[in-house]
Each structure stands twice: as C-alpha cells, then as structure tokens.
C-alpha cells in the first residue's frame, strides 16, 4: 500500500491505496465521487474525464498514486452549490444529453477546451472533443451547447 494525499474538488484526502488502483476507482469507491463514471475502461471513450492540475485527463488511464500531491477536479466540483456553470446550463438548455452517461466526461473535456480557447468555432470544438464518445450519437447538441456556453462566457466577459 502507498499513502497518497490528493486534493479533490477542494478537499484534501489522505489515503492508503494499492499502487494498481486506477484514479477513477479511487474517486468512485474510496471517495464516493460517483459522478465520474467508467465507460469503456480502455481509455477510448472519455466518460471518466476529470481535471488533474487543471487539465483534462482520462481517470481510467491514471493511477491514483500518480495523483499524489496533485489537484483533481471532478464533475462534482464544477458547480457552485446550486449554481451551474454556463457550460452545464448550456448542456441543459440545448438538450445535450440523451442517456447522460457520457455527460460528465463531455462537460469536463469541454470545460478544458473553453479554458484553452474561450471563443472556439465549431470545427475546433469537434476536433477537441474527439476523445469523448457518445453512444447515443447525440454529438450535434453537445457541440451546440459548447458553442452556446462560449457565447455566454464571452458576453459575460464583456459585461464585466
């Protein structure tokens, strides 16, 4: 067992973990952060995407020990209480989910995308969401939501 100390969604946790424990399993089973889901378990689908030190990663493809001393943000750490982020609002407004299973990963990856490029065009969004699969194939509304959130963010920025 190896002792790790990880800050997850603003709270620091210290735990003994087996080195082979995947970050996604640590989040779900040790911390109860079940908002992050396991999709394909082959690092293809992106459903398990979280942020590690502010950048998106597939948490099924990272060991929990690799997060030692680092900061993780999950889908559960985005909203401020009941107040959703503009991107989460846009997913709701645009019906950007059908079964909803890919949604946590889609939102985490799109959050990273918008931080990197606050004013993306559609091609940029599609290209940077390539690591996230929606088995309902609801991609159009997902892209629409990301673009709408970008608009909202941009407008908010101007008003500020």
């Amino acid at each position: 067992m190896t002792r790790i100390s990880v800050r997850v969604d603003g709270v620091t946790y210290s735990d003994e973990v087996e080195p082979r424990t995947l970050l996604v399993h640590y989040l779900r089973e040790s911390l109860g952060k079940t908002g992050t889901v396991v999709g394909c378990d082959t690092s293809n689908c992106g459903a398990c995407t979280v942020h590690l030190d502010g950048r998106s990663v597939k948490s099924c493809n990272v060991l929990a020990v690799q997060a030692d001393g680092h900061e993780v943000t999950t889908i559960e750490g985005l909203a401020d209480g009941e107040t959703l982020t503009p991107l989460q609002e846009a997913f709701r407004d645009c019906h950007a989910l059908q079964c909803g299973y890919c949604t946590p990963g889609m939102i985490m990856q799109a959050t990273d995308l918008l931080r990197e490029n606050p004013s993306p065009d559609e091609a940029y969004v599609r290209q940077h969401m390539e690591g996230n699969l929606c088995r309902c194939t609801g991609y159009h509304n997902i892209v629409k939501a990301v673009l709408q959130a970008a608009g909202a963010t941009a407008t908010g920025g101007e008003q500020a």
Partner: protein
Amino acid sequence: MIPVEFDYAAPATVQEAVALLAEHGDDAKVLAGGQSLLPVLRMRLNAPGVVVDISGIEELKGITDEGDAIRIGAGATYQDVLDSPLVSEHLRLLHQAVSEVADPQIRHRGTLCGALAHADPAGDVGAPVLALDGRMVIRGTAGERTVGAEEFFVDIFETAIGDGELLTAVVIPKHTGWGSHYAKFVRVSHQWAIVGVAAAVRAEGGTIAEAKVGLTNMGSRPLRAAAVEQALAGQPATEEALGAICARVGEGTDPPSDLNGQADYRRHVAGVLARRAVLAAAGG
C-alpha cells in the same frame, strides 16, 4: 480491468531511477505519462513486478535549445511539445505529428519519449523523429550513450534501450525554415494511424533542395524512405514532378495486413499520402 499487483517506486533523480531499473531488470517497467503503459497493464498484456514512475524527476522536464538542436526531456508531455515555441519554430513536422496523436486528454498526460520507448509502429511520433534525424539519449548505471533513430527502433515494441536503461531525452536537429506536413490516414480521428507519412522539405525557389520522409505503420518499425528522398532532390515542387516519385514510397516495405487494410492497400495509401505530404511541405 485492473492491473496485476505491482510495487511502485517514484525516484527523485535519474540516478535512483536507473539503479532501480538495474536492480529489477526486465521485471521493471518505466511509467512516465502512462498513456500506453496503463492500457497494457489493465489488459494484463504485461505484469511487471515493479513500476518506476519517473514523472517526478525534475531533471527530465523541459524542452531546451541546444544551439543546433532541440532537446526534449523524458518528462515532457505531448502538450508541453505543442506549447513549446522552440518546437513550433524549429521542428514544425514534430509539432504537426504530435497534434495528431490520440486526443487532448491523452496529449495532456502522455510523453513524447514514452511513445518513442514504447515503439508502437502505428504511433505517430516515430516517423517524424526518424525523418528529422533525432538522437535518443539513454542512461544506464554505466553512463550515458546516444543512439540515432535508425538504430534505436529495432522492431515492433522493441528499441535499443537495454534492461536497466532509461531513455532520458530525444535531441532533434533544428529544421528551421523547412516546410513540413504529417499526413495521417485513420478511420476514427483519435486512433492510431492506418498509414502515416511525415515529410520535411527544404525548398529553394520552387525546387526541392532536400527532402526527408518518414513512414508510420508501414513495417514493424518507423521507416525512412531514403530512395524517394534522393529522387525528390532537385525536382520542381509540382504534382506532376512529385507524383510518380512519391507513388513508389511503399516499394520494398512490408506493412501489416489487418482489419484496417491489406499490405498492398497500405502501400497504395502510402503513395497517395506521400504525394500530399511532400507537396504540402514543399508549399505546392
């Protein structure tokens, strides 16, 4: 799936890492970003007794200017490579190829040197590093040695890195001002190349003065298309002049046959991609 149990070590220095690798021999695996290793462990295709995590080693981080070359440390992620002004300015071909690797999440975590050490012939980075005459810096307990890319890539998943050795950096000569293009053929955007062609061209007034061409997934290791490079030198950068030469890029290669295509199909695709890549690199 969950990996088989292993011991985990996170050395703070290269010296410690190399000592661990020497102690455990082929029972040890190096973990950098883990984007190739973790799938292998999860699917239990490999079950090392010890995993040596080099991601915390400060001396392996960074991308530096070495005068006539750029040095990319084993700790540098794909994203570090993409964000590096040195790479953008002097190694555009590498930048283009790295931007085609997998997807953003993988690029945030995976490392260039990790991919080179993994040596998947369908990976995108071997061909450009080979084409740009990259040299691998390998450290063992006996000291450091440098191996050219042609000698480094031995076979599928096999390199010149021996037991107890660590790839610490790749050093790539600057190709400032060269045109370049990486043409990748895939069915699914974030997947491995079915075929890829990496081309860098030094053009002088509409004529190809020098060309370098590397091939992805056209054999058990990245290949250099030396005969085509020689034939391209001195040619005008036009489709008519280049098309017939590039169509022969697959001659003598032994690409795999699988669900994505038979060997003869890959040789045909390689010719098409080579024409596109060289033309784009030559500004045609």
